[in-house]
């Protein structure tokens, strides 16, 4: 089974099984990964599923779209590889994906 690793701000690692077609936010929430809230249920409305994609995965998973850009623009923890996990549809090529979590969700 393929997995994704969420690394908390403190460096703690949490693995979760990937499910093709689901959003990365849903996977985090279903597996109770601390630090991903997903308050709006996946509508890119709240900005509480901010993740930072590991450098070597950026090319595969892609960068943020225009709405994500705007939502993340004012975020002090924003990095070039920041994404909203609710806007990331899991693909079969993502086995081993690593994302980091910010210290705070907005």
């Amino acid at each position: 089974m393929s997995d994704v690793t969420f690394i908390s701000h403190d460096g703690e690692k949490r693995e979760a099984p990937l499910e093709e077609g689901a959003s990365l936010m849903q996977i985090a929430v279903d597996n109770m990964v601390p630090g991903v809230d997903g308050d709006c249920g996946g509508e890119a409305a709240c900005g509480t599923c901010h993740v930072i994609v590991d450098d070597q995965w950026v090319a595969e998973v892609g960068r943020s779209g225009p709405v994500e850009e705007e939502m993340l623009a004012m975020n002090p923890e924003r990095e070039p590889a920041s994404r909203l996990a609710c806007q990331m549809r899991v693909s079969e090529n993502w086995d081993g994906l690593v994302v980091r979590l910010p210290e705070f969700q907005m």
Partner: protein
Amino acid sequence: MVGDEPALPYQRPPLSKAYLAGKSSLEELAIRKAEFYDKHDIRLVQGTVTQIDRAAQQVVLSDGTTMAYAGLALCTGGRARSLSVSGIDLPGIFYLRTFADVASIRAWAAPGRHAVIVGGGYIGLETAASLRALGLEVTVLEAAERVLERVTAPEVSAFYERVHRDAGVVVRTGALVDAMAGDDRVRELVLAGGERILADLVIVGVGLVPNTELAADAGLLVEDGIVIDDLACTSDPRIVAAGDCASHRMARYSRLVRLESVPSAGEQAKTAAATLCGKERPIAALPWFWSDQYDLKLQIAGLNTGYDELVLSGDPTDDRDFTCYYLQQGRLLAADCVNRPRDFMEARKAISRGLDVDRAQLKAARAS
């Protein structure tokens, strides 16, 4: 977890938006998958609680069974406010609150049919947009002088009226419904004054009634909603409440506030769960809301009650993106942001932290 609906707990906000428009499935609406509940030893019971026996610390279900509790969470939500006019029970007249409501609406919503929506609030307007996307003719009837009267400034109401008219929706304000008429199904609405409007289906979205009867019968303090403090406690320390059914005494607004907002329900639920687990996590987040209509994403930060000044960034009479800031004595209270996620995030931060705002800076267009 006892609930009276047959499906797993699901997200309601998409019901009038993506789900009604046929853009998402029931599986996608589920808040958690079935395995989640199994894995975490959460037993789901489909049933109705008819009584809380606080002395015995147990609840009674409609089938007569009882369940003992150490802690009890009332997350009873609300039900659609009904319209008490003659003919309201005719087939073809719907409310929009549950998955089952939307399934019924979808079965009736054939392209070309004429849907009349009673109520120009967020649910009514979102429904209008979704039904237009499905190819129906749509009329919105609002009793007040403008749509969204209860929740936004006149400028924002005018914007949404324009947008809906541009999309081909007939928006009628000051329109009071007197009766529904038909035969084996609804055929027309009768307005006060006698005018008749033909309809193939009618959707009533005139607000929500909080489900507080269970709490009131048990002697808990109820004022509009079940009264809770900053720790989501009701007047019985063993019972917490959260969501549409709860009235929270909010220090920020110095009054009881009953919010109909998913983010607030989630915030209160996190606190309620912490309280039941013996932890202290006061309800703190600023209330916020969102509404999707057509290509417009409205995000609202804060409550605008009591505003004495408006600052507009962008032109709601012409643009499809703008922000309407609500100020009270120079302090930012709330912001309605249309297609301006960045303004929303900034406003939310400024309001939560009570930051000083500069009017000229607010005005400066910040759409990308």
